[in-house]
């Protein structure tokens, strides 16, 4: 397989996308492998055998991103028996033995489909740096802009020829400006939708499709002069870009961005809050063929009034998250959709003078469902006072490894940074195999 430098378009995305040594050899079968080993089948043939499988795999990722650092004590790792737990009570879930904080009753009903990781551990306590790290798997450095996981996965698994952008971010991008395609190029930046209630910016063709096409025709004809004068490649790139933009703006699939198209029952399930609506939009986008979607919830940086604020915030998120799991399951989409709930770090066990909790990366939690993950389990644990990992520490690279495992993406694949440094998709890290067994 050709090792492309990260800057060249991945032309053969359709066939090579998602090609990983493990999955590939596994599916070709003994005779295929034997024949390959004997040298009688070329790589091209092997790929041809597998091509249909690869296209069919069609998995997607939805990340529910809690910007600010959600407190593990008030989400999925409550400590009601300890001072550090504060006033937060724990409630039972449908899985005996697993209790979560009282603010999440709807999520509790779907615990059978959710795996909790309570032993996440990291060293970054700064919002910008931790957010960057939890999105790219690398600590930020001035010398290279790492591509976010969404960019990498949409590149490996996504369909480059699709009408819709393969990496979509829903919600405010405050605090998330460092998340981009990095050195893969701007083509892999997330496509931003600031509100689930409105269509994406500038996709409304006010004068109608026919007129747009006509005008594009005129544009292309007139550009011949400039192209001939020494800008031929630029004009070609520009035309291709406009063709893609036009395809998006005039696509029937754009309707996927319109949540008003859902039944009233479904809309009630997700609720009226913007996060819930964002989750509903995410489900629609997965159905429409988008590979990686991030739904953002802001406001989790509870340095003061931690308990009040989370109680309010959790309302919308609990509803949206639970609705998403239920909806995906009912539509038979849960196996093909990995859903990740997380933030950039956790919060301090010690409650500060403003009834708040401060940043705490030493131990925090997240939740994973779908995509082949076995729900109803807890991986790792924190100490009784919630101050550190008790067992099975999980680092950011381990998390990313696991995501790639679910999607059959090769973590060792390297891209070259603009300064010529080879960078793997995930640097080190061990997949949490318990998630999938």
């Amino acid at each position, binding site marked *: 397989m050709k090792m492309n430098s990260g800057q060249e378009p991945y032309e053969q995305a359709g066939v090579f996308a998602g090609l990983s040594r493990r999955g590939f050899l596994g599916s070709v079968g003994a005779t295929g492998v034997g024949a390959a080993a004997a040298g009688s089948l070329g790589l091209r043939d092997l790929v041809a055998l597998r091509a249909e499988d690869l296209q069919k795999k069609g998995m997607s990722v939805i990340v529910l991103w809690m910007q600010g650092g959600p407190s593990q004590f008030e989400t999925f790792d409550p400590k009601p028996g300890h001072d550090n737990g504060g006033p937060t009570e724990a409630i039972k879930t449908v899985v005996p033995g697993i209790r979560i904080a009282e603010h999440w009753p709807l999520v509790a009903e779907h615990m059978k489909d959710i795996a909790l990781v309570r032993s996440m551990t990291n060293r970054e306590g700064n919002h910008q740096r931790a957010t960057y790290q939890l999105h790219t798997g690398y600590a930020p*450095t*001035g010398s290279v802009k790492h591509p976010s996981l969404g960019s990498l996965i949409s590149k490996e698994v996504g369909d480059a020829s699709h009408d819709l952008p393969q990496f979509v971010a829903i919600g405010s991008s405050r605090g998330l400006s460092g998340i981009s395609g990095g050195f893969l190029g701007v083509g892999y930046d997330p*496509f931003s939708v600031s509100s689930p209630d409105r269509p994406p*910016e500038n996709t409304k*063709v006010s004068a109608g499709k026919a007129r747009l096409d006509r005008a594009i025709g*005129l544009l292309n004809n007139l*550009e*011949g002069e400039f192209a001939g004068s020494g800008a031929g490649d630029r004009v070609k790139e520009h035309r291709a870009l406009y063709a893609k*933009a036009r395809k998006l703006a005039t696509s029937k699939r754009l309707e996927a961005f319109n949540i008003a198209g859902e039944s009233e029952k479904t809309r009630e399930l997700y609720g009226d809050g913007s996060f819930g609506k964002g989750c509903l939009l995410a489900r629609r986008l997965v159905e429409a063929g988008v590979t990686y979607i991030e739904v953002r919830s802001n406001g989790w940086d509870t340095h003061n009034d931690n308990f009040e604020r989370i109680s309010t915030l959790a309302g919308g998120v609990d509803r949206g998250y639970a609705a998403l799991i239920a909806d995906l399951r009912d539509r038979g989409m849960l196996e093909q959709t990995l859903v990740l709930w997380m933030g950039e770090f956790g919060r301090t066990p010690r409650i500060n003078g403003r009834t708040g909790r401060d940043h705490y990366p030493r131990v925090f939690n997240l939740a994973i469902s779908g995509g082949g993950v076995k729900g109803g389990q807890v991986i790792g644990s924190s100490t009784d006072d919630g101050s550190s990992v008790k067992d099975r520490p999980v680092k950011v690279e381990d998390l990313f490894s696991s995501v790639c495992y679910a999607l059959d993406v090769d973590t060792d694949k390297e891209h070259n940074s603009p*300064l010529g440094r080879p960078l793997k998709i995930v640097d080190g890290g061990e997949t949490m195999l318990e998630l999938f067994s």
Partner: protein
Amino acid sequence: MRRPGAIFHFLACLLTVFAAVAFTNRLFGEDDSPRSVADGVDRIISEALKAEKVETTALVSDEEFLRRVSLDLTGTVPSPDELTLFTLDPGPSKRSSRISSLLASEDYPETWGRYWRDVIAYRSQDQRFGIVREQLRRWIRDQLREDRGWDKIAVDLLTATGDINTNGQTGLVLAQMGEANELAAETSRLFLGIQLQCAQCHDHPYDRWKREEFHQLAAFFPRLRIRRKEGTEGGQRQFEIVATDSSARSFQRQQAAQGNFSKRYGDPSTWVERYDRNSDGTVSMREVPKALSGLFGRFLRAGDKDKDRHLSAGEIKAVASMAMSRPRNRGSGEHYMPNLENPQSRGTLIHPEFFVTRKSPGERIDDADRRQALGGFLTGKDNPWFARALVNRVWKELLGKGFVEPIDDMGPDRSPDYPEALDLLAEGCRQNGYSLKWLLSAITLTETYQRKIREPSPSPEAPSFAAVTCSRMSAGKLYRTIVRVLELRPDRFPGSSSRGRGPRNSLESNFERIFGFDPSTPTEDVAGTIPQALFLMNSPIITQAIRSSGDTMLARLLGSYKDDRLVFDELYLKAHSRRPTAGEWEIFSKYRKSVPDRGEVFEDLLWSLVNSTEFISER
């Protein structure tokens, strides 16, 4: 002479004449004048190209020249009137006169202020940077307006201290969070064009830089800190840069005292050995000497697990190792290179040294002295990289490609194209006090700058500068060009604040958000994006501005000229700064036949002009 005053009058006139002649000579003939350096650069490049038998493109027409140089020096396109006047001007030195007058205009510092701001801002790692972003732009603009030397600007940026919110000069330090390692990397990138940060953790894989050299550069910055200003609460975001010299000195006194203390009373691990008088394997408060009781008390509080008021050797060891795991270098005011094999340890003490010239300012000195010294070393005569980095960067900004690419990856291990030309410009710039106006004049006066564009050749060995490279406009230039061409009124748009709160959601900041990119990115890596295309294609701002009726530029034009040919020509002059070709008129005429409505036809044309590659290209 009949009147004594007449002599003086005569002499004064003579002096004025001499001054004028001297000035013109400076511009047009002395050794380090922009003109003579430009000629030297051209000579070097064209000789090399001739030797390789590479054909250069022709020089640009007057129209092309005016558009290119107006965008490059003042950030917007010329008006049709300016174009016409310029092309009709018969003067032989009109191009160089135009260069001088553009540099003298107010738009020059405005547009290049934005450029340098972006160079710093796009590498910012600090989420507070937004506080100082606008001040930084203004501060740079003010320096450029007076044509203050780049060396002075660099020193000011590096030695900035004090209040951040009102002082744009602090922008660079804030962008790198006031952190020594980050500042070292950025100083090297921006002012030397050398990528040193790979050497932070290991000797550079293929350049000559050693790890120690990186940390020696970082050692110029360990005594500064960014902190919240005294007396401000959580809500108000006020910050300042402070030097930690006094706490560094007290840290050192404390270290010395501890050293003496340990010498007298021994390492804690030896306490059981020394003070366990009743041989029960533990040490109690009664057994330790009085001077040690304070420290022992702290050890007891931290480590007396079984609460028996005695400390065993094991308990003592546990407390000692806990203390070790806390970083002991904080507050020391010195820079330590981490020990990669033993990250918990203190690391190696490193003193500041400038890796290019091996000069050092001394040891254990104050923040101001360190950073001032670094400023001096960077801009000194014996450091050729300062001028070279500047020249390379500005050359690339004007021609689309640098002598070395990427432009901030130079250094002794790279081979620039036409090194003599690079050095000629670098030396000239230095001789002229690192004047940016001088440098911009010298480059724009060259024939090399004035060549027509051509696609970069597919072969990487093909020599550069036989033609100029097509490149994309920055967000700021595109914004101003659109405002000018479509005669927009930005103050009329929702979100633009006249209350002095800053252009948070203004039209300009939207352009920045959608079209902005890091100016240090190589030209071929700057690609268009879908949101950009969607904006120009469909945004209500554009679609309304190009309408043929109402209070719009097009409506006014259609009203003024009944002859379609005139409207066609005028639109090309406005949007593309040139007259249309016969071929383009043909295409349009044919198109016109299929669309009966005059207004619609011209809307489509204007839409095409604004959405074209040519419109968004700087050259």
